């Protein structure tokens, strides 16, 4: 496989490729930040990458929204199912995010910080 082939493949599968890159970015954000909010943001980036991946499955190059209109001849339609499913996925992600944020608010109330390391340090003080 030559370099050209690889590049060509990457170009053909660019959605998936970027979805994976986005996934890694999200995961890295989750992993490397002590700030809990940033963790949640990383989680959202991860979710977004998966949504991109899923939606890309159903995308047809040059396709249009699958709505029947009288008089318009048949063209390539985009598969609507992944998009519809991802809408649900987004709802789920939103609710998880909201819930996580509310938990962070609670943690902030208890500790006065949203830094995981700080929380750990404070916890160390009153462990028993």
């Amino acid at each position, binding site marked *: 496989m030559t370099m050209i082939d690889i590049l060509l493949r990457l170009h053909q599968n660019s959605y998936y490729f970027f979805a994976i890159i986005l996934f890694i970015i999200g995961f890295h954000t989750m992993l490397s930040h002590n700030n*809990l909010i940033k963790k949640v943001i990383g*989680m959202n980036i991860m979710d977004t990458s998966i949504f991109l991946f899923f939606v890309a499955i159903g995308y047809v190059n040059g396709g249009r929204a699958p709505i029947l209109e009288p008089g318009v001849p048949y063209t390539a339609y985009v598969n609507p199912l*992944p998009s519809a499913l991802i809408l649900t996925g987004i709802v*789920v992600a939103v609710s998880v995010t909201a*819930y*996580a944020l509310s*938990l962070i608010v609670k943690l902030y109330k208890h500790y006065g910080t949203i830094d995981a390391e700080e*929380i750990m340090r404070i916890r160390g003080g009153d462990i028993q």
Partner: protein
Amino acid sequence: MSIVNHFPVLAVVVLLLFAYLMPLLMRWRKEWCVPATLGAIGFSLIASLYMMWQVMTTGPFMYQMGSWAPPWGIEFSIDYLAVFATMTITIVGLIVIYYGTQDLLHELKEQVMGWYYTLYLLLMASMIGMVLTNDLFNMFVFVEICAIASCGIISIKESRECIEAAFKYLVLSAVGSGCLLLAIAMIYMVTGHLNFTYVAQALPQVMDLYPLNILVSLALFLVGLGVKAALFPLHVWLPDAHSSAPSPSSAVLSGLVIKVYAIAMIKLLYKVYPPELLGMAPIMNMILWMATLAIIIGSMFAIVQDDIKKMLAYSSIAQIGYVFLGVGLMSESALQGGILHIFNHAIMKSMLFLSAGAIIYATGTRKLSDLKGIGITLPVPTIAFSLGAFAMVGIPITNGFISKWYLALGSLDVGRPFFAAVILVSSLLNGIYYLPIVVNAFFGEPEGAVAEPRPLPRQMVVSLILLGSGVILFGVFPSLILGVVSKAAQSLLGLL
């Protein structure tokens, strides 16, 4: 068409309906919250028992949402495994919440009680939905509702431990759900279907074309469901979450929630992926080794705990290992043992958590070393705890013995006596941390003056007695439940 034909969906929808009614009731008719919750779960129990009867007499059937036939519509598959799981969930769920109506009063603030019932009903609905559904994406939605609701019933007790544990659980399970969704995307990518039946038909045809996609989806499922089911190296959230939550939450989380993910895993492995693939890929061996590690190391962690609920939580890690051991061995008796252990462990672990909760309620201490001599002052919870402990160790005439019996026979069936030995060694390990508690509770001399324990409310005592009699009943007459279990195992293995 009578209403009984719609029991599969009503078992879920009625719970959802009452979950959303609960905030309204809370505002206007506070005293109706408890009966409404009990009534809704009771209805689901009746529905699941009826479904069980129907399936046992006439065989599995499908229920299509909005009369849309698959692959367009979502459908519920009411098979042996599903009715078994539904029955387990509703029975244990009903008993736990009946206990909880009293116990929660002292663990939670009064104004959040209604929310607790909402979350609990949502949790029950999502669990039942997860085991009934025959659609991958629908399963994902139920998984998510289940994750959020189970975090909710942890963090509703507003102590710092609970909130931190819930946050940890939430983030980890969100990552797990991400894996799950990615896996579903992979499957959809190569097959174009989301319905279990259709995916199962399509997978063998595309297996040679896209082997990588299918294998990646398998690994993603394993991690996504593994982290939610607390399979050994992914269990890290469980001890905190299960030990800090209010006792009824711990009971339902340890007893039911992690098992439901195991059931989802069973469904995926046995109903969706082609057996040829499982034969080629080392997935079952991976599950087996993880389960073995879970059994041994979970018990070893439990031995060094001093907090009663934390010990029980670690023991759950070991017990989920039994279920996965049954899944991984792929023989009929082992699968029977694994599925049976879902039921048995649901009963005994919820009983253990509830009796621990009752002991904490009455004495105010969580430390194992403070529990000396409480057998005399608190007979019912202590006897219940001892029964659960005996069942965990696997003493005959308790139900824990039966599942171990089947698991060990299964492991011998496939010619791997090593796993039978693992089961027996883990019984001894369980004995090491459960028996001293029982001995101390009954025969230990309390140190210092013992405060008179608070009297236990009737609800607590009744639910403990119900679960305890279940442990004995299903230990002496396991055929009551084994009928459906063996049918489930046979149908999963394609022997039926």
